[in-house]
């Protein structure tokens, strides 16, 4: 927290200036302004899609979550009371939708190293992670793909809540306090859930270490 030089402090002032417009945007959106709501969507859509895409592994499912989340936000923005940040509020909607998705898919096996694009074509995520060395190594690519599959299998053994906490902490980098707020629980509970999740993952992936 805090800047370390004059530029940091002036960036901090810019952040204050940015925060004021967001409050105004929210108020305008609450008053019915569509353009204000669209501006809010643009501020948060990237993070929403990033989370949904990584959790679901499907562009189509990520689009659905995006759609549901922002339609809900549009419908209920009048209930937003500024008791938390708008970021927390919108993220809470998204995490609940993702949790619902995880619960629905709990019994389905997903090959998450492969992502479906909007036309249903498969895209192998691990094939797109380039090896920076100048020569290709098919054996290494295969190993990486198999590793990805094992990771997905291990993640699928977590409960939806454990998966969600792990996703938000490990992959999205949120603080445990924020995760607790998003999931309507305490920081301590989020911490315990993370501990259980890592314990299960280590047990599942023990053979790889």
């Amino acid at each position, binding site marked *: *927290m*805090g*800047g*370390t*030089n*004059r530029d*940091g*402090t002036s960036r*901090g*002032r810019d*952040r*204050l200036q940015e*925060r*004021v417009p967001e*409050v105004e945007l929210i108020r305008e959106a*609450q008053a*019915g302004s*569509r353009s204000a*709501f669209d501006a809010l*969507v643009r501020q948060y*859509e*990237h993070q929403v*899609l*990033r989370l949904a*895409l*990584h959790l679901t592994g499907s*562009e189509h499912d*990520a*689009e659905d979550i*995006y*759609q549901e989340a922002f*339609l809900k936000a*549009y419908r209920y923005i*009048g209930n937003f*009371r*500024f*008791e938390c940040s708008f970021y927390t509020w919108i993220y809470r909607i998204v995490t609940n939708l993702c949790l619902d998705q995880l619960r629905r898919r709990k019994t389905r096996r997903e090959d*998450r190293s492969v992502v479906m694009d*909007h036309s249903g074509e498969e895209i192998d*995520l*691990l094939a*797109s992670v380039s090896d920076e060395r100048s020569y290709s190594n098919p054996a290494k690519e295969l190993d*990486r793909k198999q*590793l*990805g599959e094992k*990771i997905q299998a291990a*993640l699928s053994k977590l409960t939806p809540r454990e998966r969600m906490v792990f996703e938000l*902490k*490990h992959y999205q980098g949120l*603080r*445990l306090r924020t995760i607790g707020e998003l999931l309507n629980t305490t920081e301590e509970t989020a*911490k*315990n859930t*993370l*501990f259980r999740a*890592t314990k299960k*993952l*280590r047990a599942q*992936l023990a053979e790889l*270490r």
Partner: protein
Amino acid sequence: MNCEVAHERIVTSAYGELPDEQAHELERHMTGCPDCSTEREQMLALKVLMDADPVIDPGPNLIARSRLRLEEALDALPPQRWYERLEQRLRNNFAGMRAAPVAACLLLAVGVGAGGFGGYRLALKQTVQSPGGAAAIPVNAKASLQTADTPQLSNVTTISSIVRQPNSNIVEVRFSQLVPERVQGSLDDPAIRQLLMLASENGASPGLRDDSVGLLAAECRAAHGCQGVGIRNALMVALRYDRDASVRRKALEGLRPYVAQDIRVRNAVLEALLYDSDPQIRTASINMLEPVEADTSVRQVLYAVANSDNNPQIRNVSRQVLSRVPEIQ
């Protein structure tokens, strides 16, 4: 510390969330416990392993498609009617009273009752009831209606229809009305507090917000029922977002008793120190930062401000606080 606790803290530490003094304890424990040292290595290895499942940023096509689909869905929504907007506004206002449901219900009952009674009296005094139930006003009585009932007419929010009855001078006007209310009570009354909190966010003028925040802040400084988060939240919102410096100053003062015990309040004060446009508020924020054990954020912010702030007075005050460094661990 036993190994069970150490294992939990190893996970928290691996993600950078372990407070400094617990990290120190953990290090001491692991120095004498090879099993826990191995546990930590395995935890770090898991973190590296899990990164083999990369997070992919959404591509521009996906973003564009999602946006387009959302816009189509929003365009397809029917526009809200005036009574739906009014209902939404009332719902927003009463949503803030969820902490005092009984008082909120009483207030609602009083408001509805008073509004209904007032409308009934107006209808008896001024109108001839038509079979359709709308207000039917003789055309030549319009002026007398306005002069006799200006307070009520000033509360009219919407005229929804005007229909002149054929072959007569009778005009039917359908309208909606807001009835202003007044309530009086002690500052300890939850209903009064809820109204003050509403006024702190939605007050029509800076003076109104100033008064409401001033009253709430005084209650908190006197430790009158600020243990719940409602009033503290209202003060933090005012400190962060109100445009009037006087309102923000009062909110800051009201939060003073909670800087040490409530990390959210502390963060709000740190943000005020970094970003507020009023130097007095920033100076007051520095003076409010009491030594807080294990909170390195306070020290980091003070260092940053002491080294690089544009305001020399702010730099000086920060340095003075930092000179008491042994008190800030």
